[in-house]
């Protein structure tokens, strides 16, 4: 029998329907591989019993010949930012160690209602703050990809899987999950997808419910899938999305059949190339890949246009005011009073101080401090309010651009995966990882990263496409055309 873990979701669904294998077999194959690849540290909590139980239930549903869900029997990894009933949910933080929610997030509930199987909870940057997965209290996640030596061999340096959805990207790339949920606040789905040769889509803000997802920056957070093909992402997103009355920012709109929208036809599609994304110091490799992407789309009948998004250069500083501001407030509830870690103190204030000092890591503390500062009396107008104004201008850039084009093509990241000790020291260097992705969050638009090629050292590089609000259909269709043209078939070492 072929290795079931290499199947796409689309193929696995066909195989399950044709009774070529059972959901239990599919799940067991993944559990077996998870055990073998523990060194990647992709999972914080593995849930094999739950997985087998769900897989068996799926097999029963199929055997009974009744209706099956869109993901019936498909084993998934769940980013540990999604609250899962009865299963520890840590957000990658010490402060939530041992926290078992009594409730199920809307997105995971939607997935389970569609028949999905949960393999476990995936590692991530602490409270989704990071671009390397290095800020997790539960240890680094290792990218299954390795650099190629000059002699063509495999370099031993461990590389980051990107972040914050680093466990998700690594697991999907390493075939220890058919797909995974992620969340994207500034690039946390697209950047790790790009660094691991996987596909990741951040849908339009409001497309997926945020209910039950540990909040980082509420006005930017959005759930989405990481998978190994655009089609799989379309299947996943269709199951995850939908209006939720429990989330006031979730939008009451029907969810289209994204998979059906993948026609492969982009004749007449207008693709924008934003000139401001040619940032200083962009490597030739990235620049060439971007040009190649445009060529691929053009050869399929698209029209390529240069566009301008003039406020792009302000996006990163704007993001690093708004996101920490919201985070500083969202994370105030981790105070040791009702759940999670508590370090006793002689007074309430001392308990807060000791609990939060012990419970939060360095990057989280840094962002809480920044956020508290920019919201303080006397600084609010200069920072937070100003950032909100710039945010409106960035949105207007996109609104104007989408009068001329249907989708926008950019690189996903400024570089391929890097080593754990690279980009260290200066946090701003790390923040630059998000330079191409944060604008999309600030504008609330959908964005997708598609693997488009390998760099000189054999590491995957991604291209990003950005769509109109709530037009994931066009975005996914264009991305699939790009995916087919790129024909990315490389596999990480040892997978």
């Amino acid at each position, binding site marked *: 029998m072929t290795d079931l873990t290499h199947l796409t979701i689309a193929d696995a669904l066909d195989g399950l329907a044709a009774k070529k294998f059972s959901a239990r077999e599919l799940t067991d194959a993944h559990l077996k591989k998870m055990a073998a690849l523990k060194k990647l540290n992709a999972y914080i909590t593995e849930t094999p019993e739950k997985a087998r139980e769900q897989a068996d239930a799926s097999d029963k549903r199929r055997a009974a010949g009744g209706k099956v869900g869109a993901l019936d029997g498909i084993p998934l990894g769940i980013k540990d930012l*999604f*609250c899962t009933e009865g299963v520890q*949910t840590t*957000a990658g933080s010490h402060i*939530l160690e041992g*926290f078992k*929610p*009594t*409730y199920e*997030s809307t997105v995971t509930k939607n997935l389970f209602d569609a028949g999905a199987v949960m393999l476990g909870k995936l590692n991530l940057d602490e409270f989704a703050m990071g671009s390397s997965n290095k800020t997790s209290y539960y240890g680094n996640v290792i990218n299954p990809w390795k650099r190629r030596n000059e002699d063509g061999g495999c370099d031993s340096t461990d590389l980051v899987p990107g972040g914050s959805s680093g466990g998700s990207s690594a697991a999907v790339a390493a075939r220890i999950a058919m797909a995974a949920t992620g969340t994207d606040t500034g690039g946390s789905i697209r950047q790790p997808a790009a660094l691991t040769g996987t596909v990741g889509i951040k849908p339009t803000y409001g497309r997926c419910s*945020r*209910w*039950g*997802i*540990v*909040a980082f*920056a*509420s*006005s930017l957070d959005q759930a989405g899938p990481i998978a190994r093909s655009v089609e799989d992402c379309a299947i996943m997103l269709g199951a995850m999305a939908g209006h939720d*009355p*429990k*989330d*006031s*920012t979730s939008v009451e709109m029907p969810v289209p059949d994204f998979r059906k929208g993948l026609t492969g036809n982009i004749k007449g599609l207008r693709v924008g190339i934003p000139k401001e994304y040619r940032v200083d110091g962009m490597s030739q490799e990235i620049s060439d890949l971007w040009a190649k992407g445009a060529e691929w789309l053009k050869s399929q009948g698209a029209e390529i246009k240069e566009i301008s998004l003039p406020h792009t250069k302000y996006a990163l500083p704007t993001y690093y005011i708004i996101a920490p*501001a*919201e985070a*500083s*407030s969202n*994370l*105030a*509830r981790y*105070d040791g*009073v*009702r*759940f999670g870690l508590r370090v006793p103190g002689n007074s*309430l*204030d001392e308990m*807060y101080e000791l609990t939060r000092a012990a419970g939060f890591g360095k990057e989280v503390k840094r962002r809480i401090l920044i956020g*508290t500062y920019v*919201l*303080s*009396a006397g600084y*609010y107008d200069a920072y*937070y309010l100003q950032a909100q104004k710039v945010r409106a201008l960035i949105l207007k850039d996109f609104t104007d651009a989408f009068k001329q084009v249907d989708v926008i093509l950019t690189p996903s990241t400024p570089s391929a995966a890097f080593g754990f000790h690279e980009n260290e020291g200066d946090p701003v260097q790390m923040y630059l990882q998000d330079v191409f992705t944060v604008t999309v969050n600030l504008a609330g638009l959908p964005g997708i990263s598609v693997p488009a090629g390998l760099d000189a050292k054999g590491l995957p590089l991604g291209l990003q496409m950005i769509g109109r609000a709530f037009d994931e259909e066009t975005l996914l269709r264009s991305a699939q055309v790009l995916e087919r043209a790129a024909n990315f078939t490389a596999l990480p070492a040892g997978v």
Partner: protein
Amino acid sequence: MTDAMINEKNLIEGRTGKWEVVLGLEVHAQVTSHSKLFSGAATDFGAEPNTQVSLVDAGFPGMLPVINQICVEQAVKTGLGLKAQINLTSVFDRKNYFYADLPNGYQISQFLQPIVGKGTIVLDLAEGEHREVGITRLHLEQDAGKSLHDQHPSKTYVDLNRAGVALMEIVSEPDMRSSEEAAAYLKKLRSILRYLGTCDGNMDEGSMRCDVNVSVRKVGGPLGTRCEIKNVNSIRYVAAAIEHEARRQIEVIEEGGSIRQETRLWDPGKGMTRAMRSKEQAHDYRYFPDPDLLPLKLDAAWVESLKAGLPELPDAKRARFVKDLGLSDYDAGVLVSEKESADFYEAAAKGRDPKLVANWLTSELFGKLNAVGKSITESPVSAKALGELVGLIEDNTISGRIAKDVFTEMFETGKPAGQIVEEKGLKQVLDTGAIDVEIDKIMAANADKVAEYRGGKDKLFGFFVGQVMRAMGGKANPAMLNERLKSKLAG
């Protein structure tokens, strides 16, 4: 406020001259609603600790607020009742601070864009005086939970039942000049809230709480530095706290000191205020729009429909009672001050003489209720029963004097007036013949007094009335008795 509005009797005499006290009130009124502002948890008073708490109220990870439309409706109704501007777009902000009974580490409130803007309220003062006070704003916000410090020697317990309950913060302009005016403001506001059914106004249960801003100034001088007094939980305490605080401030200034802007706490045990925290120690609340909630947009037509459906409020009702029913402004004011009394009155007065019913209600029933410490809703005499009693007076079945005895018995036994009159044979005598017989008897028995009367001692008329009434068991129709007696004594 202009100097023309300075009322001499409100001024406080200090060592250095007369002082004016300037007052503004912030009232937190709990919205009458079955569930909380942003969650479906119940809001009943007095439930076991932590039994009315949803995951949202307890600030669990990933929980999100969803606005309760009923609470919005109540706030808009209240705004309309205060003749205030309704803001069709308002914004919920987070007010950030750490405390054990504030689960999220922030309170959802409205800072820059409240749901209700400027309005007015008319105070009903002594001697029928009315005065208008400005409302600055009304906004919706969440209540915090309750910290219980006295349950354990070293621990604090937290009860989150109240956490997330909807409050309306109603802020007045600094338009009041005496503790009487502040008390009148609270009474009127509470009355309006109760008429609207938007807050039960029970200060002892904490569903209406008050912070008072107090400053003093020399007459005509610039505004002084204010202190905010927190935790004043009855109208009586509000008046007492203001009296104390104004005198304290005057003393400080007259002794050469100056007032620090600070928050002070009212200590009802000691009858004084004490410093809680200074301006420098004040929290930086880091307000910012709550990203979990979209701006609240109201439909103008919906607001109009609420306006059309508002009940008649005390000012309008009082005016109607005066104009249409002929009541005095004072009586009308007494009747409308509580919605229940006004409702009782209107039910009792249906088809009766409105002034007569008003008299019976304000002097007799209120007096008896006061004496036994009952409210109008607990009255043993129903509105219908009181109306029937007045009906018996109106159709001359009984006299007003007998009616008082009947009423006393009604109050004690709950029996209807007609039954008491029947059982005790209290129907008044309208037969002039029968009255004449009794008059003749009395005149015969008191011939000396008849002579004195006829000799010019008019005052003896009352003596004869009393004698005849007593002889007739009080049942003689007083008007007839007077008329017959006058003519007979005249000879």
